[in-house]
């Protein structure tokens, strides 16, 4: 089973995934119409600044067992067994924020959502783009990521590829670094900038 895999070391912080995610969870499903919608669709993947101002794409890990599911007061959080996706039923959610307190990654947000009940804030988080996947598409964040920080693949295959990349980069006649040179340069510039400014 394919899943979204995050490679934070490759993220350049462009936030294109956030835009794509919000669009994929809008009513119109196109960017230009989505910005006109009320309520405005919001991203379910969150690119924050890491310790050295590098990008860090943060999204639901669909944990098993899921702490948010155990903490949900209204029984709104459930697992879609076919794909292992942790889902929030917008009609059962009471916006109590109990899941925010349970989530160790801080990926749940609370607002009115185009796909939820009108006029009520609810808990919103990544749904693995289940609507897109059902149509044979890949998740929106992956489709839009140009830096290779988000991939959609089998976990076993991704682990093997990563192991291979790392071991290749460690060998003396390394022809390929683990991270593309441009991304590595951008990260080291950000890190040195921060060190020079003394913070």
């Amino acid at each position, binding site marked *: 089973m394919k899943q979204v895999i995050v490679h*934070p070391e490759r993220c350049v912080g462009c936030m294109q995934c956030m835009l794509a995610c919000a669009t994929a969870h809008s009513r119109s499903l196109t960017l230009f119409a989505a910005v006109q919608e009320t309520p405005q669709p919001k991203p379910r993947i*969150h690119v*924050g*600044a*890491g*310790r050295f101002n590098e990008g*860090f794409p*943060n999204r639901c890990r669909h944990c098993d*067992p899921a*702490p948010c599911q*155990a*903490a949900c*007061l*209204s*029984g709104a959080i459930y697992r879609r067994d076919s794909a292992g996706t942790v889902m929030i039923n917008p009609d*059962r959610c*009471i*916006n*109590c*924020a*109990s*899941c*925010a*307190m*349970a*989530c*160790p*990654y*801080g990926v*749940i*947000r*609370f607002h009115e959502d185009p796909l939820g009940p009108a006029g009520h804030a609810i808990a919103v988080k990544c749904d693995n783009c289940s609507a897109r996947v059902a149509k044979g598409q890949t998740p929106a964040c992956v489709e839009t990521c140009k830096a290779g920080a988000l991939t959609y693949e089998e976990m076993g295959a991704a682990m093997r590829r990563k192991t291979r990349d790392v071991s290749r980069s460690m060998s003396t006649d390394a022809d390929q670094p683990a991270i593309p040179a441009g991304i590595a340069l951008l990260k080291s510039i950000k890190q040195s900038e921060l060190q020079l400014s003394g913070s």
Partner: protein
Amino acid sequence: MKHVIIGNGIAGVCAAEAIRKLDATADITLIGDETFPPYSRPMISHVLDGSQPHGKLPIRSEHFYDEQKITPLLGRRAGGIDVANRQVLLADDARIDFDRLLIASGADPRPLKAEGLDHKNIFYMRTQDHAKQLVAALDGARRAVVLGGGLVGFKAAYGLLKRGLAVTMLITSGYPLSMQVDETAGHMILDELIRHGLTVEVGVSVCAFEGNGSVQAAVTDAGTRLPCDMVIIGKGVLPCRTLIPRGQIEVDLGVIVDEHLQTSAPGIFAAGDVAEMVDIARVCPWVNALWPEAACQGRVAGLNMAGRPVAYPGSLSRNVMRVFDLDVLTVGNANPRKDSGCRVLQAGGAAQGYYRRLVLRDDVLVGAVMINRIEQGGVLRSLIENRMPIRLPPERLMTPGFNFGQLLL
């Protein structure tokens, strides 16, 4: 294997589910004094404030017991445990055999000692039945008195204010939720409630109720008379431990359990509001009578009962609530003793519209209070629960941009 669970609250229900997951053929009997399907106790405050209907309280299907192949004994309260003969005694003298027993009997509201408690419209707020009675009593009510400023008292006062009643809250400390939050946060919450019509009386207690069938006034020990047409008593809860045979199962305030949630009697476990174990933040035995705690403890107790040894690291207090325009989240020990050697960081306040407070013991986070911008509260809770040494400057945890990525090196 015969499993018996005393209590059909969330701890009992989660334990039964965990046992069933590991053992498809185990014999599971669940004894509960409430006959309503498994429901969400914390949601009754949402029923009181009118944001959710009573019908949304059940959180498992009405066929839950059939689906999980559980034998329910509902409407019956366990009266005792015969440890030597491995039997649970019911109030009607029936005896139920067990190989493994879970005590998840929960807690009852701490009773109030006052005269005139038999007047109508004086309530506790604990069960779905209380919620139903409370909502029925709202019709025509204008003035309410709430006793206690803890979690129950606070939620009762908030719900009644949202329903448009004039509420007087009687508290012993200067602000509500004094066990959960520090003084700054407490006053932010208090001001928000006062802005919406709350009256607060500090340091007085009620000694009698007056009325004519229905309650009409509460009389305080200071001699004042508070006119009201309904009263909610929220003086905390006490573990239901009358069924525990003293001397055979170790009991303090709650039933004492080890890291596998087993009591001092082998094969007998306890979880939820009745269980006492080490508190991760306070590092001493504590009863954290909280719903999410009960859910996790129930699950772990069930796994252990079914034969998979799983350790529970200890309990942790945590709460989140929305108070009109304030979102309040609190975890662990927010009010360490002055001589505890803990370091306290604070930022924001009433003027800034948000507040954050962190309590650290050496480089380990032991407590946090957040008002507004609470989305990262779970990250802080997880740091406290896992006793993770914080390697980045703790000030970073206070900034609005703090996120999980900053914890990675």
